[in-house]
C-alpha cells in the first residue's frame, strides 16, 4: 500500500505537532463541508458540522492508528456525526417542490455550473441539485451514507464498509438499492445514452 501522507500528518499531530493538524484541516476542511452539505441544506450549518467533525478529530487523535487510512478515520467520524444530525431532525432537508427557476436561496452561481455555463445549464444544475437533495432525504440513513460516500466521495466499497462498520456485500446492496432509487428520482435529469440529442 502506498504511504498515506495524511496518516503521517495525523501521527505527527499525535506527537504534539499542531501544524500537522492545521495541514489536515486545510487539505480536507472544505471537502468535509461539501460532504456535510449532502446531509444538511444550509451552508452555514454544513460549515458548523465540518468544524464539529474536525474538533472531534482533534479530541480523538490518540485513537487513530496508522493501520487505518486517514480518510477512513475522518469519514467515519463525519458520517456518524452527520447521521446523528439527520436523526435529530432539526436540519432535515425539506422536500421542496420549488419553482423551476430557483428557490430564492443565496447561491454562488459560478460554483454551481462554472463560469462558462449557460442559463439553461445553470437552471439544469439547480434542478438536478434539488432532485438529489430530495432523493437523499428520502433514503434510509445507511443507504444515504453509502450512496454519498460512493457517488460523491468516490470511495471504494471496502472503505465504505469500514466507515459504516458493515460488510462489503452489505455496502454493495446499500449502494445498489440507493442507485435504483436514484434512477427513478433523477429520471428527468438522466437521459439514457440512446436518447441524448433526440
Amino acid at each position: 500500500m502506498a504511504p498515506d501522507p495524511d496518516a503521517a500528518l495525523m501521527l505527527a499531530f499525535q506527537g504534539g505537532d499542531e501544524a500537522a493538524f492545521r495541514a489536515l484541516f486545510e487539505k480536507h476542511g472544505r471537502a468535509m463541508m461539501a460532504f456535510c452539505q449532502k446531509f444538511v441544506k444550509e451552508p452555514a450549518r454544513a460549515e458548523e458540522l465540518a468544524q464539529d467533525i474536525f474538533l472531534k478529530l482533534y479530541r480523538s487523535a490518540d485513537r487513530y492508528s496508522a493501520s487505518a487510512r486517514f480518510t477512513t478515520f475522518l469519514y467515519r467520524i463525519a458520517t456518524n456525526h452527520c447521521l446523528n444530525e439527520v436523526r435529530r431532525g432539526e436540519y432535515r432537508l425539506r422536500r421542496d417542490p420549488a419553482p423551476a427557476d430557483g428557490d430564492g436561496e443565496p447561491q454562488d452561481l459560478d460554483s454551481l455550473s462554472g463560469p462558462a455555463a449557460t442559463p439553461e445549464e445553470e437552471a439544469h444544475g439547480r434542478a438536478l441539485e434539488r432532485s438529489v437533495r430530495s432523493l437523499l432525504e428520502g433514503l434510509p440513513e445507511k443507504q444515504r451514507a453509502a450512496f454519498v460516500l460512493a457517488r460523491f466521495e468516490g470511495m471504494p466499497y471496502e472503505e465504505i464498509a469500514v466507515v459504516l462498520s458493515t460488510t462489503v456485500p452489505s455496502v454493495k446492496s446499500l449502494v445498489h438499492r440507493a442507485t435504483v432509487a436514484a434512477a427513478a428520482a433523477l429520471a428527468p435529469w438522466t437521459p439514457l445514452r440512446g436518447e441524448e440529442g433526440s
Partner: protein
Amino acid sequence: MKHVREDLTALLDGALPASRRAEVEAHLAGCGACRAERERLAAVLSACAALPPGPPPAPGFEQRFYARLAREKGVRPSAWRRLRLSPWRFAVPAAGLGAAAAVAVAVWQARADRLEMAQHLDLLENYVVVASLDSVESAEDVEVVTHLDELRGAKP
C-alpha cells in the same frame, strides 16, 4: 440464466471480483432487459458526477475554525483528556447519584404504600360500620362507603 440486476451497480463501480464480472458481462451480452437496466443505472452515475459543487464556504472559513478551536482548547482540552484517561472519575459520582436515586424511589414508594393503606383503613373502618347494618351487597354500596367521610363532614 438468472438476471444480474443486483450486480449492475457494483459492475459500474468496478467493485465486482473478476470471476463474477465475467459472468455478469456474459449475461448482459444476451439479455436486453439487464442491458437496459445497466444503462439506467449508468445514467445515475453520470448525473451524480455532473452535479455542480455546492457553494464554497464563506470567506474566512479556516480562520473561523481556528478561532473556534482556540476557544475550545482554552476551556476544555485538558478536561477532555482527563475524562478520557480516567474513567474512574465517573465512577464515584455515578455511584453517588445511583444511591441517591434508589433512596428517593424507596422513600416515595413507602409514602405511596402508607397513603394507600390509610385509604384502605378508612374504607375498612367505614365498611365495618356499614356491614353491621347489612347494607353492603354490591359494588355500588362500596362506592357509598368510600364517601361516608364526606357525608360525615357534611353533617352540621
